[in-house]
């Protein structure tokens, strides 16, 4: 069977999914939408980052890893990606990794976040 490139969240599991690389999944998920946030429903900092984007008028796509059966793998992958002990929150914009909360805020303060959002089509004037 050839690889089914489409992953619907928790709904449709391609045959290759069992062995698929979590990192790949992360990248794949991240590139599907303009603004992607990996989160945990219990994490308050994730809540803060969600509020930040909503407050800017952006509608982010949120993946709650604690509601995913393979969320743990994704968490591990994210930790490796960030070099961090905190897997979440992690933000991707236009498929590009922005980073954890501190990077997101820094980029908002120095004025680079909004142009990125506009470029990704997540924000209109």
């Amino acid at each position: 069977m050839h690889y089914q490139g489409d992953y619907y969240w928790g709904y449709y599991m391609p045959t290759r999914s069992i062995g698929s690389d979590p990192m790949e999944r992360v990248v794949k998920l991240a590139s599907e939408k303009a603004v992607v946030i990996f989160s945990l429903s219990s994490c308050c900092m994730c809540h803060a980052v969600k509020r930040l984007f909503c407050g800017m008028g952006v509608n982010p796509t949120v993946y709650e890893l604690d509601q995913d059966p393979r969320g743990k793998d994704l968490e591990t992958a994210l930790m490796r990606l960030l070099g961090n002990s905190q897997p979440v929150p992690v933000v991707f914009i236009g498929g590009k990794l922005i980073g954890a909360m501190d990077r997101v805020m820094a980029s908002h303060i120095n004025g680079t976040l909004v142009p990125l959002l506009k470029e990704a089509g997540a924000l209109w004037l």
Partner: protein
Amino acid sequence: MANHRVGETGLADSGPSSNHHHHHNIPYAVLHGMNVPPSFMHQEGSAFDFGELEEAIVLQGVKIRNDEAKPPLFTAGRPAATLEMFPSWPMRFQQTPRGSSKSGEESTDSGSGVNTISSKTENQVEPESPISKKTSSLDQQQQVEMASDISRTGTSQNQSAAAKTPQEKRRGSTSEKQLDAKTLRRLAQNREAARKSRLRKKAYVQQLESSRIKLTQLEQDLQRARSQGFFLGGCAGTVGNISSGAAIFDMEYSRWLEDDQRHMSELRTGLNAHLSDSDLRIIVDSYISHYDEIFRLKVAAAKADVFHLITGMWTTPAERCFLWMGGFRPSDLIKMLISQLDPLTEQQVMGIYSLQHSSQQAEEALTQGLEQLQQSLTDTIAGGPVIDGMQQMAVALGKLANLEGFVRQADNLRQQTLHQLSRILTVRQAARCFLMIGEYYGRLRALSSLWASRPRESMMSEDHSCQTTTELQMVQPSQNHFSNF
């Protein structure tokens, strides 16, 4: 000891005896029943010919000395000598006897003590000096002494008072001509000594000022420590009243504050000296690194004792009033600066407003995140069916640990805001801006001290109040408190 109140004859210049000032027209010698050459009596007005007065006194003293082993010359000569210091001023000679009496008669003055006193004498002779305020009852007594001694043979013990003592007078100046020459020399010495003593006085006052500032700082620290002790008194497991992480940070912070003052004065002098942009840039950049340092320190402090930061126990009460997530609120800072940063280019204005907007959004996000944390914590430890107390507590502890993350993000936001400010502004604007920030927080801190030391009716304040409202505290020195965060 003479009992007659010399003060009342116009020698004292304190308030009550101010009505005796008219006495100053009466020659000193006459006042005290000395033998005065008649020529002297025709002097009038306030411009004495002090040379003659001095001569008269000296002659008197010489005469007395010739009868006695110990010359009262010093005693007698001194007032005249000091009088001569400022010949152009109407002399209130009544001060000098006090001064010189101090130098002599009976007190425990050592040689150096005499010097001080003679300097005080000279100081009192200065114009518009609030001499009356310096009068002490001791002075009065010594004036009494002085007066009485003038009339008798003095027991001058001030041979050691070398300052401007006319040594040469002692060495047998018996003729008028010799006196004149020596008088001139002595007068010159007097002027020199007076100048030196003025410098000494200035130095002393400076010392007092700095001690006063140190005292207020110490009291601030003490209050802080006490208040922390008050709040953390029931905390188990800590030997002192404050956790070691918090204590360490407090120490680092106070050192940072001292550094901040240094940086501020660098900024000030840099701006006033109209340094080149590149030179000023160095100073501005070092100030930014200075702030970077406190944020670094706060990272460690948040790990060690997040409550210390988040409750603001490391700051002063007034700062604590404006505290947001363990520090200043960036958008408030920008609001404060906006009006003062003129003139700005249109681009800069847009940049500043956009910075304010984005920091507001970030603050709002963090605040909401923290609120959710609080809600979650409440849910965890609130009542309801007691499932498992320990489990509950463990979960709650886990949630509490998130506080550190929020304080860190808040500090990160502050740091980014300051960096962005320096990017938007020109070097000179940035220098002025940072100076303004430092001064603002310095005033806030000064406000806290003033508030703590204000006079109050009730003596029953439990914590920070400084019951001893001294003048020193009420009048804060402006310069030193204008610094830092």
